[in-house]
């Protein structure tokens, strides 16, 4: 799935339903419409804007105790399942979690944690390319990613995030090399980890 990145207005992708200082979870308005792994999203708590990197996404039943059951035995295709049981769309929900990696106050962008976590029900937007570019001018967020414990592997997240970010650059290669060099310095003692990440971001 490829998102349209060139909209003038930031694209709204969900609403915060759970928040802490280091991350927030948002529910998507449409089922399966969570932003791709590693993309940069933001939420507002004026005067602050919080930036997050999507590190996890999940689709589950709206009731924790009720698990979905298999329905496709007599259907010809997967789409038919949803067509014949339209209520499914309302019984399931998609969520994604984002790691807070920085914030903006006024005109300035800070690559460290904001003073307060996001508010519940604040809207979450996908950052437009210009903003991604602005944010990735500094690679300070990589240090944050390396030092966080997450349910997904950090290597995967870093690689996914750099792959997403490089899309907005004309010279993707130069961006990736610069990021790679930053990683090489940060991971100076862990060559194997560096190698794993570099292997995932090369084009």
């Amino acid at each position, binding site marked *: 799935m490829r998102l349209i990145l060139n909209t003038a207005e930031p694209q709204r992708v969900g609403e915060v339903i759970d928040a802490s200082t280091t991350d927030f979870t948002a529910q998507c308005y449409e089922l399966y419409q969570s932003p791709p792994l590693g993309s940069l999203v933001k939420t507002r708590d004026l005067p602050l804007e919080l930036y997050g990197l999507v590190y996890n996404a999940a689709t589950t039943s709206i009731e924790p105790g009720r698990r979905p059951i298999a329905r496709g035995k007599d259907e010809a295709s997967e789409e038919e399942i949803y067509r014949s049981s339209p209520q499914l769309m309302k019984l399931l929900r998609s969520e994604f979690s984002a790691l807070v990696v920085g914030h903006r106050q006024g005109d300035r962008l800070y690559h460290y944690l904001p003073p307060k976590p996001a508010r519940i029900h604040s809207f979450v937007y996908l950052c437009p390319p210009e903003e991604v570019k602005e944010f990735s001018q500094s690679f300070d967020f990589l240090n944050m990613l390396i030092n966080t414990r997450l349910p997904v592997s950090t290597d995967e997240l870093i690689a996914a995030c750099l792959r997403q970010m490089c899309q907005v650059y004309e010279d993707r290669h130069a961006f990736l090399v610069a990021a790679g060099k930053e990683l*090489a310095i940060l991971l100076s003692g862990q060559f194997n980890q560096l190698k794993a990440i*570099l292997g995932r971001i090369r084009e």
Partner: protein
Amino acid sequence: MSERLGIVVSGSLNKGVEVRLDSSASVEEMAVGRYVTIEGEKQRFFSMITDVSLGVIDQKLTVTPPDISDPFMAEVLAGTSTYGTLHVLPMLTIGGEVASLIEGPQPVKTVPSHFSAVNLASQRDVELVFGSEDERKFYIGTPLDMETKVCLNLEELVKRSNGVFGKSGTGKTFLTRLLLIGMLQKSKAVNLVFDMHNEYGWEGRNERGQKVKALKQLFPSRVAVFTLDEENSRHRGVSTDFVVKIGFDEIEPEDIVLLRQTLNLTGPAVEAVYQLHRRFGKNWLQEATDLKDSEETRELLKDLDIHESTFQNLKRGLATIRRLPFIEPHAPTDAVKRILEYLDRGINVVLEFGRYRDIIAYILVANMLARRIYTQYQDRTEKALGEGIAPPRPLVITIEEAHKFLNQEVASQTIFGTIAREMRKYNVTLLVIDQRPSGIDAEVMSQIGTKITCLLDNDRDIDSVLAGVSAKSELKSVLSRLESKQQALIFGHAVPMPVVVRTREYGSAESYKGFIPSEEAETRKQAEKDIEELWG
């Protein structure tokens, strides 16, 4: 604009500083001997690269090297996980201190602070250090990978003895020609060249066999060619000014002492020379070789306390000398007098040896002439000092195969040893050309002011050339990595810091033009001279 290479990360004044290369600077483009400037907080340090090495941030990289066939990987790792380091030796400081601003670059007394930026030296920096060509400075070559001129201060150079060293075929002769031309143009000194291989006076040949002009062809009015072998000179089409003949009576015992090894004389035989000289006086050589195997001779030898076998040994040696064709019972004109006449007129003298290239002739003649010229100069200088008149013109004597004159055994006895040690006071210095500097006496080596050395690869030779120089080990690595052609390391009195140069082109028509001053300059010089004469 200067090109940034990296930053200083550690170091000491003694051992030089370590510079970590930026990822944008390629380790392969660095070269030992190249100049860099370090931007300290208060002053700039003019320095030379003395070593280039590779570093890794994580030792695992050396154990399990990454896949470098992947260009992305290679590009990322270059300059971060893997990096180049330079070992840089600060030599001079530019700017900053008052003394440095007024008197130009000063020797370093400290190191730049941590993380000072390191740039490739700009043309301007090099010019600031080595000066530009002027009335005293002679353009000898360019630094590696640069177009700037490195200039030697010849006025300073001729004040001390100097040496040109290098293996055979590394360009000693070309360098010497350049130096001679330089001295001829830019200093007040005159040269006396003992030209063993007939290369400096008239034309010589380069390694490709092409003819190369020499001094007399370039400066006909200021160079005289003397020859020992008239016939050979005529064959080669050389216009000679004087044919040198040497009389038996001009050879003195000291000359024989020097030839001891070459003539294979024993110790007592050398002793006997002095006794014979005492007995027969000036004509001793002729008298001694003319002695017949008779009762009278035996009596004489007994009288002089010379053993028969010693005398035979000596006689064989002396016969070798007598056989030299340029030696005659009585020389028609005094060669020394003639040489001095020319030198006094400011004309440089090149003495060609023609076919007599064997070392016996060379040592004998060079030593003999030099000794007598030395005496003259000594007398004149002392007289000049006493009477307050102008001392004689500074004289530079050029000798090849110098280790034959200046080795440990004979250096204390030959005139060249004396000149090297103390003749500076009497306005005579040496230009020593040699391929085995280790053969030269350490005491003489230590008196050599400026050393110009081409490639040397024998450890002992390198050690002897670099003896007493600070940062010896760094220069050693530079010296042993010189290219075998047209490159030389210059250090000592006449240059502010050791410098590796690509020697100036010599041998093409273009290059000759550079040596001969343009008419305009000549006229100006003449005018200045006239003014000086007019107003005193």
